[in-house]
């Protein structure tokens, strides 16, 4: 009974972690950007969905949250990342650190703005489907099942897009050899726009689902970035498969700890695992370099 409960809860939490992390890792793999405003973007999607659900219903709110995620992704790229990448004043070898700092500050600005307008109290998005269903004796909110299904649907769609479409294959190529791609006549700028759009959809979906499943507060923005970052490092920077594997490892480790040891020690074993992996296998579980 408890085992089944852990299996079900861990699955949903891990799916959500996975969805939150693969956008982050894809962005790094394709364009070399570590977006430290990631948590802020998730936060805005959730808050917009929460705010608008009253006026336009739960589905309308969720759609608005998704759109907000896409808008925030483009804002991050066009207002913060691209100006740094194009700047002539910043030496080329320092651009990565500038992008890191820029997105970190941008994330703090987003967090403070959300706190200013909607307080630091957590907000929870109205679930698309309320109620519970009993799976083999375990009372599970239907919203939790829906979260897992939607996460995997989004992940599946992303996989199809990347592996089965021409634009997706260009993305993949950009992550392997951007110079070669430009020699073939592809414009890197358009590929970057595409990857930020995909990132926006993934982050927006993750934000809305997270808001409905656990709730978010402006104070969580940093933690959300950190959790995506550690999952991605654990799985191997830039590796989508590695991130999914790491998301499930972290999700289940946390759930098992919370149920069998203590909820207040929830994150500790996963962090220890991260330290061990970084020490023994710095490229991450499925990393390439």
């Amino acid at each position, binding site marked *: 009974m408890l085992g089944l409960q852990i299996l079900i809860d861990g699955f949903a939490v891990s799916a959500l972690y996975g969805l939150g992390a693969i956008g982050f890792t894809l962005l790094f793999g394709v364009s070399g950007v570590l977006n430290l405003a990631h948590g802020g973007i998730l936060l805005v999607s959730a808050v917009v969905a929460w705010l608008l659900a009253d006026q336009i219903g739960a589905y309308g709110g969720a759609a608005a949250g998704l759109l907000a995620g896409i808008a925030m992704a483009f804002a991050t790229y066009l207002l913060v990342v691209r100006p740094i990448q194009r700047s002539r004043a910043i030496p080329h070898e320092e651009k990565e650190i500038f992008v890191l700092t820029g997105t970190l500050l941008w994330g703090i600005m987003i967090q403070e703005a959300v706190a200013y307008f909607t307080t630091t109290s957590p907000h929870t998005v109205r679930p698309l489907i309320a109620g519970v269903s009993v799976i083999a004796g375990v009372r599970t909110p239907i919203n939790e099942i829906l979260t897992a299904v939607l996460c995997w649907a989004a992940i599946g769609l992303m996989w199809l897009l990347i592996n089965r479409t021409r634009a997706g294959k260009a993305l993949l190529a950009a992550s392997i050899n951007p110079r070669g791609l430009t020699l073939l006549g592809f414009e890197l700028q358009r590929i970057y726009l595409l990857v930020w759009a995909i990132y926006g959809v993934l982050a927006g979906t993750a934000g809305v689902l997270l808001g409905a499943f656990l709730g978010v507060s*402006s104070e969580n923005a940093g933690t959300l970035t950190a959790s995506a970052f550690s999952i991605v490092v654990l799985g191997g920077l830039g590796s989508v498969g590695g991130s999914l594997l790491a998301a499930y490892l972290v999700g289940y480790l946390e759930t098992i700890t919370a149920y069998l040891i203590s909820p207040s020690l929830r994150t500790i074993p996963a962090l220890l695992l991260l330290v061990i992996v970084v020490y023994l296998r710095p490229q991450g579980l499925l990393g390439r370099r």
Partner: protein
Amino acid sequence: MSLRYLLPALALAVGVPAIADAADPIRIGVIAENSAISGIAIPNAAMLAADEINAHGGVDGRMIEIVAYDDHNSAADAVRAFQRAANQDKVHAVIATYTSEVALALQPWAGRLKIPTITPGAASDEISKRIHGDYEHLKYNFHGYLTSGFLAQSVCDAAKDLLTGSKLKMKTAVIMSEDAAWTGPLDAGYMTCLPKAGLTVLDHIRMSPDTTDFTPIFNGIESKKPDVIVTGISHVGVQPTVQWANQQVPIPMFGISSQATSSTFWKDTNGATEGVVLQVAAVDTVASTPTTMSFAAAYTKKYGITPAYSGYTAYDDVFIIADAVRRAGGTDPDKMVSALEATDYVGTVGRVQFFGKDDPFTHALKYGTDFVSGLVVQWQDGKVVAVWPPAVATGTLRFPGFVKVAN
């Protein structure tokens, strides 16, 4: 520059006390976390009180001026704000914070800088115990909210009438509190008074305020099969409430839930708070005193939401300080302390008197039906309905369908 202009300028530069004093406003510093519901209620309510006092001519012709500072719920920021308030902005009194950790950090500073200071929302028993332990230095501090021990007592008194002595016939409870300074004495109080009220305590859970997934906690509680979950939550609130409702945990929640004291909690939880029972100092729908409802109405009109619990006490504290200045004949800190100690004021939360130097809870609010005792309300259909004490109750307990109680 001609002499005609130079003279007034000189007078300004050296200060002309005789003229300045008559119009010199009484400055009250307000230090709180502006981005939290329980925090922002403090300056909001204080400004409302100042406006009312000033509209009636102020205190002996002196106007009240509120100087507000945001402490971001950080003790370090609060101490800096306090120093600035005292040294630069020259405030005569301070109303500060709903967080016990922050209130405790400010205590020595109120003593060093000799600024009478009242906390309208922090609860830890340590606040008044420390004043008792070092009266000479810390006497400038006043605890303007019920101590955790009294809060626990209030919850137990209500539990005895509503849960064990009623048709619900409850027998067992699990305590669920957040890990913070104010819940230490609260939980100790629960452990002693719940059994006396007829509830056997089956388990005692202290959770991290950073918790976001409460499923394992509720799961663990459910496996103990208690009749009720007795809560001690303030910094968390939305997430446990929403997850309690979404997961349809069949056990009622009863106790302290500070965030649930404001009307925004209904929207913040999308109505998941339906059926939650909580202890409050005052509420907009119950005339605990003649001023409770008029204050709540004025606050709601001005700010669009009902005041959080700390709003009621912060509003009262401005009047209490003004009253003390009037009786002390000015803003001399030691005279103000003596005047505050003699406070006997009927505010929005009840009749306010502070315990004296020799009581173990020096300068804490007196608890009891003749003083401040609080009431217990339940969220029903988007509104809070008073269910205890019987004298003010306007409704009876009614739980959502998923909560299993004996009827």
